[in-house]
């Protein structure tokens, strides 16, 4: 009990100590709560969309409401959930612990970025109340400049959220450079740090472009300054260049930290040293670099020049190389390991299956001639859900379950966790695999109504979403109940090697009583026998 009282959760006490905290663990936890709230909202919207699509024509809502629903689902899931979830929530919590540091480099900036996130989120909520946006999350011109829904407040909210993302990225870059424990060299640090580092570079480099784009959009909409409207001398395709110059790298902001988590969990639960440490580390940087060169593959059918489309198609294939390097290195890590199937490992294996499908279908879509047919169909919807949900969300769930005992000092019910993982995996595939078939048969995305021939597959997909929802409900139940009656976790319930597992769970206010000295690699499971505690 005395150890518990010294934990960051209980010390210092009082609501003000939380609201004005500079402790990276508390800020991470506040992020986690806020982000999970929006994940829930986005998830409910997704369920409503799937219910509407259960049958052709009107099922539960009008067409205009449906347009607002899928726009909000996309905008909330992208800007309020998936971009910040791993870096800002889990990264904030574990990065300083992994580095052996007491906090991030700029604790006040960290708190500021949290409040900027909340402020941006309030703008987004305000726009929902005052007439939800119906443009799709991409806010494409010319429709977005003409739509009478609250485009300005939503895009302004996203503009504000961008600053939160930039400040977190900046903070992480400086923290990773400056606050390393003695002995923790660049090639001796956990790969999650490499993932966060590559992510932070993209956040700092690309996010300002999104901010500029949205400001230009607001200027055109509010003051009639011609930037994207051809009638005023603008170019609507230019909007897409601006938008995707950020938003394609943003896909890697979403997936790279997830890949970092996979490198952690796959080694712990197969008791193996990671295969190809440097290859995985450098492939993260390679993905970050290539991510800036491929945005035009979103625009193959939008009227961009043929030569640009060919260049972007070629460059897009390059992404397959570092992604493939990672997948094969993880598989090689599993080979002859002592694999155990706890919940984090189940999500890790799900990631390997689903991300591979998502990645390979990305090659289909990057192929110029094929994309002309598949563009804007459900094939694309299935592809990015396999990458984003099958990839990032599965990795996030792996990380959440892996670090849950560290964050809260409690163990969740492992059996229920396995059942939930099974529901989510089966439900996910039932929901999205059929969408590949729907898309390849010509079902366009974002449509309210559809031909009767698509009904069975749409219904199948909707039933899949219910299975997945059951999985998430079970997860919500056992995670929350673990806070009240879960078994107390020791320092190191998984027998892992990282520095975060050398201190009590939940960690004390100051993390480390003395600065740790690192003398071994992060994955030396072949040399060091770690006891579960």
């Amino acid at each position, binding site marked *: 009990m005395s150890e518990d009282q010294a934990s960051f959760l209980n010390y210092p006490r009082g609501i003000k100590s939380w609201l004005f905290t500079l402790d990276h663990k508390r800020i991470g936890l506040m992020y986690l709560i806020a982000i999970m709230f929006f994940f829930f909202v986005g998830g409910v919207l997704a369920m409503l969309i799937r219910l509407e699509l259960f049958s052709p024509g009107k099922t539960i809502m009008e067409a205009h409401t449906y347009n607002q629903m899928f726009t909000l689902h996309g905008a909330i899931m992208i800007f309020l959930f998936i971009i910040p979830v791993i870096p800002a929530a889990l990264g904030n919590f574990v990065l300083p612990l992994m580095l052996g540091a007491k906090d991030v480099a700029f604790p006040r900036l960290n708190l500021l970025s949290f409040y900027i996130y909340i402020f941006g989120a309030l703008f987004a909520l305000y726009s929902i109340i005052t007439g939800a946006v119906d443009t799709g999350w991409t806010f494409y011109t010319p429709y977005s400049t003409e739509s009478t829904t609250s485009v300005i407040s939503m895009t302004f909210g996203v503009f504000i959220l961008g600053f939160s993302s930039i400040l977190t990225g900046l903070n992480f870059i400086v923290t990773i450079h400056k606050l390393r424990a003695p002995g923790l060299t660049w090639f001796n640090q956990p790969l999650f740090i490499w993932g966060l580092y590559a992510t932070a570079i993209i956040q700092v480099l690309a996010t300002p472009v999104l901010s500029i784009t949205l400001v230009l959009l607001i200027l055109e909409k509010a003051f009639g300054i011609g930037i994207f409207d051809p009638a005023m001398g603008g170019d609507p*395709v*230019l909007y897409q*260049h601006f938008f995707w110059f950020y938003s394609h790298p943003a896909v890697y902001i979403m997936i790279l930290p997830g890949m970092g988590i996979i490198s952690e969990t796959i080694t712990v639960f197969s008791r193996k040293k990671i295969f190809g440490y440097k290859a995985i580390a450098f492939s993260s940087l390679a993905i970050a670099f290539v991510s800036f*060169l491929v945005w035009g593959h979103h625009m193959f059918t939008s*009227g*961009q*020049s043929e*030569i*640009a489309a060919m*260049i972007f198609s070629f460059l897009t294939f390059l992404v397959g190389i570092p992604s493939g390097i990672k997948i094969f290195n993880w598989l090689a890590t599993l080979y002859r390991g002592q694999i155990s199937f706890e919940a984090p490992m189940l999500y890790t294996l799900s990631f390997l299956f689903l991300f591979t499908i998502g990645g390979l279908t990305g090659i289909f879509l990057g192929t110029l001639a094929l994309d002309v047919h598949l563009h804007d169909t459900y094939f694309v919807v299935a592809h990015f859900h396999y990458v984003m949900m099958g990839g990032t969300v599965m990795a996030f769930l792996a990380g959440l379950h892996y670090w849950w005992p560290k964050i809260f000092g409690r163990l969740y019910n492992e059996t229920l966790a396995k059942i939930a993982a099974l529901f989510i995996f089966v439900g996910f595939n039932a929901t999205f695999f059929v969408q590949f078939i729907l898309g390849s048969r010509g079902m366009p995305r974002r449509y309210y109504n559809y031909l009767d021939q698509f009904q069975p597959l749409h219904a199948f997909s909707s039933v899949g979403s219910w299975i997945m929802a059951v999985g998430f409900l079970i997860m919500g139940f056992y995670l929350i109940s673990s806070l009240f009656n879960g078994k107390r976790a020791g320092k190191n319930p998984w027998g892992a090697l990282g520095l975060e597992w050398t201190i009590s769970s939940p960690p004390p206010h100051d993390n480390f009583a003395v600065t740790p000295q690192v003398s071994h690699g992060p994955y030396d499971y072949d040399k060091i026998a770690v006891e579960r505690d």
Partner: protein
Amino acid sequence: MSQERTHTDHILPNKTYLLVAAALLVFTAITVRVSFIDLGGYNAIAAIAIATFKALLVSFFFMHLLYDKKIYLFVFSIGLLFVGVFIALTMFDTLRRADIYDVTAEPIQKDAVIYQENPADSTRADERSGQH
């Protein structure tokens, strides 16, 4: 980790500052002058080039980038590189967009049998269209 200062603050002579300021004024005048000359599409390039050069002067001398640790110069140039990438790849689209209409029709070989109608085929074709 303790911070060690590896260098002392660099102080430039006033003369350098005044020279740079003068150069900035001269280039501002050039920008204005050039805008009155019709260079076609090159007007924008000229304006951007002059503005970039002026920004470099400010960051190198007023902001001491040239005299600071080289890592900052490296980070700065990465930013410039990606602005370059953005403009260059976008220009591949906007400058070459008309190419899409460059397809010229090729004459169909005279007397080539493209579709030969005979009674048997036409009934089959009717059946096919009936199915659709």
